[in-house]
């Protein structure tokens, strides 16, 4: 991570400090960006992610262009035995058993995965950073409580819990907590956020523990700054880099977590396309031995997405850490 802590005032991109002849100083962010640009693979990952976001946003438009909705059923897409047709001029990625367009559903599946990626992970980050900073800064009893809490959640069997909660909240009409927890994307996002914030909290807490001993924090304190101000203005900015990196690296496992939950049939109703659910439908009675397209396309997209986030996360980490090799 950043070796030399910087003060918040210096984090302005574009500040070029000229000092004498020939030397061009650059802000840490500019340095980071140059390093990141050099990493071709990470850039490729970044472009893939941008494309995916574009596809997700434009999904309804694409569906309109193709002429098939994500939940529209086509009798012509299945034969008399209910078996779907493969990739054709009308159905680019083929159809599935109820007769839906796999291409359109794959595009819409990007929405689900990206929602999980950004919303669930965002929530996890929010909770994790808050609790991590509080634990690391205040130490003592607060730290102990929060740390034990983190340990507890980290030791829970994720999948079993998620399955249990989803199953228990599926039975009644209102779900759990008076309608707050109902099967669907909301439940999946909540479960994922609830179980992954400890990772971030732990890392943040470790960073804060070392940061708070620095001289500039002492200086702030001696100038009369309260705990909250120090956390907000001094500590948080220095955490920006690790937060960004670890958040990006957690996204792939969250996406796969949602895919796993959907694969196991808990959480998202069929009307919200999800790559995990599409993979499950394909493996029902080994349908993919006949309808290979039902498995190939969602699988490929899932692979591409997680790979892209992994590459970008790796690239971010390398670019933000001046210690790892490579020239500027």
């Amino acid at each position, binding site marked *: 991570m950043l070796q030399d802590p910087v003060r918040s005032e210096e984090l302005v991109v574009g500040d070029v400090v000229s000092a004498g002849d020939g030397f061009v100083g650059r802000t840490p962010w500019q340095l980071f960006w140059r390093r990141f640009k050099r990493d071709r693979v990470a850039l490729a990952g970044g472009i893939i992610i941008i494309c995916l976001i574009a596809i997700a946003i434009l999904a309804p438009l694409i569906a309109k262009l193709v002429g098939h909705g994500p*939940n529209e059923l086509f009798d012509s897409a299945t034969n008399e035995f209910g078996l779907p047709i493969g990739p054709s001029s009308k159905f680019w990625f083929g159809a599935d058993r*109820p007769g839906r367009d796999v291409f359109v559903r794959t595009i819409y599946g990007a929405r689900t995965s990206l929602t999980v990626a950004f919303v669930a992970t965002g929530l996890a980050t929010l909770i994790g950073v808050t609790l991590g900073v509080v634990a690391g800064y205040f130490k003592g009893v607060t730290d102990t409580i929060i740390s034990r809490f983190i340990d507890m959640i980290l030791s829970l069997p994720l999948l079993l819990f998620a399955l249990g909660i989803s199953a228990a909240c599926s039975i009644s*009409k209102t779900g759990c907590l008076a309608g707050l927890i109902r099967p669907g994307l909301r439940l999946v996002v909540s479960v994922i956020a609830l179980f992954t914030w400890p990772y971030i909290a732990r890392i943040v807490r470790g960073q804060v523990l070392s940061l708070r001993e620095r001289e500039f924090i002492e200086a702030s304190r001696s100038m009369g700054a309260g705990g909250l101000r120090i956390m907000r203005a001094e500590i948080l900015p220095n955490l920006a880099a690790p937060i960004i990196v670890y958040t990006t690296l957690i996204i792939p496992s969250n996406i796969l977590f949602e895919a796993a939950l959907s694969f196991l049939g808990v959480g998202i109703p069929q009307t919200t396309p999800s790559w995990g659910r599409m993979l499950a439908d394909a493996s029902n009675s*080994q349908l993919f031995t006949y309808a290979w397209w039902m498995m190939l396309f969602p699988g490929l997209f899932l692979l591409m997405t997680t790979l892209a986030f992994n590459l970008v996360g790796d690239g971010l980490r390398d670019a933000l850490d001046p210690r790892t090799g490579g020239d500027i």
Partner: protein
Amino acid sequence: MERYRRSLGLLCLGSILLVVAAACTKSTGGGGGNTTSAAPTKGGTYRSATSSFGFVGAFDPVGEYTAVGFEYYQMLLRTLLNYKGVAGADGLTPQPDLATDLGQVSSDGLTYTYHLKSGIKFGPPVNRDITSQDIKYAFERIDSKPLVAQYGFYYDGVIEGMAAHDGPPKDISGIETPDPQTIVFHLTTPTSDFPARLSLAATAPVPQEVAKCFTKPAGGYGNDIISSGPYMIQGADNVDISSCKSIKPMSGYDPTAHLILVRNPNWDQSTDTLRKAYVDGLNMSIDSNVDDIFNKISQGSLDGSFYEIPPPTVLQKYATSSSLKQYMHIDPQNTTYYITMNLIVPPFDDVHVRKAVNWIIDKAAIQKAWGGPATGTIAGHIMPPSMAALGPDYNPYGTPGDHGDLAKAQAEMKQSKYDPGHTGKCTDPVCSNVILLNRNISPWTDAEPSIVADLAKIGINVEARELESGAAYQTIDSVKDGSQIGIAMNPRWGADYGDPNTFAQPLFSSQAIIPVGTSNYSLVGLTQEQATKFGVTYPSGGVPSADSQINACLPKTGADRQTCFQDFDKYLMEQVVPWVPMFWANQVTITSPTVTAWSFDQFSGFIALQNIAVSNKVAP
């Protein structure tokens, strides 16, 4: 650079995994076999596999209430009356089994007397003659609540002195055993389908000296069933019944692995006109991979399937091949698959809404999702063709191509109080968040999108909830406020025996409504008192009842009874409208060329294990 190698590595791994996945997919080899027109061969084993036994009563005959359980019992147990194990109406007509004839009925219809054939013995390790007292003991077990009988309602209140009680089996005043070969039943009221109730496995003779050891937990006797039929559970002869403590489960039955039946040495073919018992035994193993089961059948390592619906790829393979077609056996069961609507949950408490739903559902799409016409006939009314057959012409909500009719559905919806603006769609807020209950396995999940889309056409926006089969049933069979589901597509109902009342009382009578475990999911006939007692809201408009119609039919016999129940079906479809019947199921069984004699057991709705023959020479 190191990073490139890492990414390359990731890419390679990904592609390798894809390739491995593709390579691991088995290709189903088509196998053309020799046509088998040979005479039935004796011996060999029927080797089959199933994804799970699916027992609801742990295989103890007193409470096992599944059709698959009933079919296994056709090999293991004998009852006073039983069936020939053939297809069609002939397979639903009770025949004497342990009894010498169909019994004598008194003129007032209240006393039934049966004489037992002589020389029928229990299998090892009991090895003694079966007596009327053993049959009576089976009835005593039914009334012992700790043993959890599941169809006691066929006997409680019907046979004098029979009522469920806490505590161990005790004497029943209405069943007399004047001598070991005679049994007399005293009824409280004439019940013309009573003889058929004596064909159910819970009434098969049970040796008290063994069963008395199984009081807790319920179902324990299922591990040590003593045979009265042509076959016994493998390992039965090794069980030590000298004391309760010494009894160990028979090795041939492992609920998670297999059920192996071998010949019962004490079975005398001359006393049994109903069972051919060609095979030397049955080997039913558990294989959770359904596709694997059908692969093995086409390769010949299994002789045939059991209850699993063949996946559509298998259906297509066999139906389109002239050489394989003969190995696909399609027989109608006595089963209706249906969508049930709860009469007390808005908007389904309005008959116009229920009728609109009947008009809009695309039944042809549902049939396709199941695998096409081989899997069943689209249902136009409630009772399947084998029961009080109204015939395919009676289809009050029939639509062109069975695709549903939007205009008719809208016309019906416009008359509903939930469509005050007469738009043809439900506009009441209560329609915006209805839960549709479903099973979480194929093909139910494949039929779901069609039903969801159909309901949306008339303004009912459902959120589908998919649950495991048992959990889905438990959700709709309990009558508790707050957990009432408005509409569910998971249930199917099969007749317990060949009388149309099996499609009436348990499904639509108010006395069938119990707080937990009811089969009257629609709550037809729910009374105000029941609603208060069970804690559910009684709708202001009341709940339609079918009690008087059912009670009018019960005392009738013969052709009158048939006509009465046909009218009852019409009354349900036109006035009460509790269901949308989807289709009447066929059982599709795939066999391999090793099966030399095939028979379908209409009673259970599956292959007649007691009457098939195989050419393999394998020991069980």
